């Protein structure tokens, strides 16, 4: 069962439609949806796969509550859960495991270069992705960089763990990333 985590600020019903619905409509397994504020380690551990979704460009609410995702460290230690962070989700994963969030705007279709297939959640068919963010990530040596745009890291994996992040939106382009998750 997949847990799809909603990172949208709670009152943003329209963002839920835009960022979470397209993701769970692509998954091929049974799924449940929860807001990040309602997820703790006991809940997270029940799922064998977790997707942490993105949110509206202007919504930075989740950034003030990254500590709510500390359960990621516990799941990483147990190493029983496959996790994919999308955009905000990728930023959260990066920060929890020692990376840094930096300011970087990318909006629209951009080109990426595949750096290391091991850093990608699945083989990517296209070198074009859909980006929608004002923030990017800087990673330390605990990560494998899977792909980069000319400006920043676009896809990564935590070394020795099935924990991935993509800064772009695979629910728009490169849907196989979610379909094959």
């Amino acid at each position: 069962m997949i847990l799809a985590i909603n990172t949208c600020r709670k009152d943003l019903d329209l963002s839920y439609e835009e960022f979470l619905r397209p993701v769970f409509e692509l998954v091929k397994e049974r799924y449940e949806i929860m807001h990040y504020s309602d997820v703790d380690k006991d809940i997270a551990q029940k799922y064998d796969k977790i997707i942490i979704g993105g949110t509206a460009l202007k919504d930075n609410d989740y950034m003030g509550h990254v500590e709510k995702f500390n359960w990621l460290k516990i799941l990483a230690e147990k190493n029983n859960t496959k996790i994919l962070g999308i955009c905000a989700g990728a930023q959260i994963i990066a920060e929890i495991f020692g990376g840094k969030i930096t300011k970087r705007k990318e909006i629209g279709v951009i080109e990426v270069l595949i750096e290391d297939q091991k850093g990608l959640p699945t083989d990517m068919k296209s070198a074009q992705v859909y980006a929608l963010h004002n923030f990017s990530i800087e990673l330390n040596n605990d990560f494998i960089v899977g792909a980069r745009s000319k400006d920043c890291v676009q896809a990564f994996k935590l070394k020795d763990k099935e924990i991935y992040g993509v800064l772009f939106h695979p629910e728009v382009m490169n849907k196989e990333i979610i379909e094959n998750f």
Partner: protein
Amino acid sequence: MKLAVLFSGGKDSMLAILKAKEQNQVVCLISIISENKESYMFHTPNIDLVDLNSEALGIPLIKVITKGEKEKELEDLKKAIEKSIQEYGAQGIVSGAIASTYQASRVQNICNDLDIWCFNPLWQRDQISILNELIEKKIKVIIVGVFAYPLDDSFLGKEIDEDMIKKLEKLSEEFKINPAGEGGEIETLVIDSPVHKSKIELIEFKKEYKNHAGVYNITQARLEKK
């Protein structure tokens, strides 16, 4: 939140209005009328009927006529959005964009520059589910433009009902066209909905069709009390 909805008079922007109204306040509509019939950004058939729809909905309209040159259209859209902020207190923009990354990213960029919200509640929706939701939500829509084979003039002026959806679905499977028309295959006009205070009655209209493309040109229409 106070929201302005990008409105072409068609089904997607009407559905966007209904979704925006669920938990927010729609303070105005924004319509960009392109003099360029093949506008990069904006839908064009009968777009002057947006005034009637605005009146029927009881929602004020900011209407801008643009020459339709690619990037000038965006400047005009930005000015219209700025006006929605200044005159109506809009805090965000809602669009009915479904799959066009070109359109969506340009609106996102403008909203980002102006530091306002941007919402696209139909984003990546399945095409047939959009058409079915029109029926479910009792949005009355007619086809006013067809731009792809095998959509011929028999579609012009027809209402999108369950039979039409089945027909479009069958054609989309056979001919790989987009059944909700976001690829530009069909353009629609909303003539009634549960939030319309009046419905639109078409008085004078003419089909114009040539070489697999046609429009239902409405030269006279009025509001009728419900």
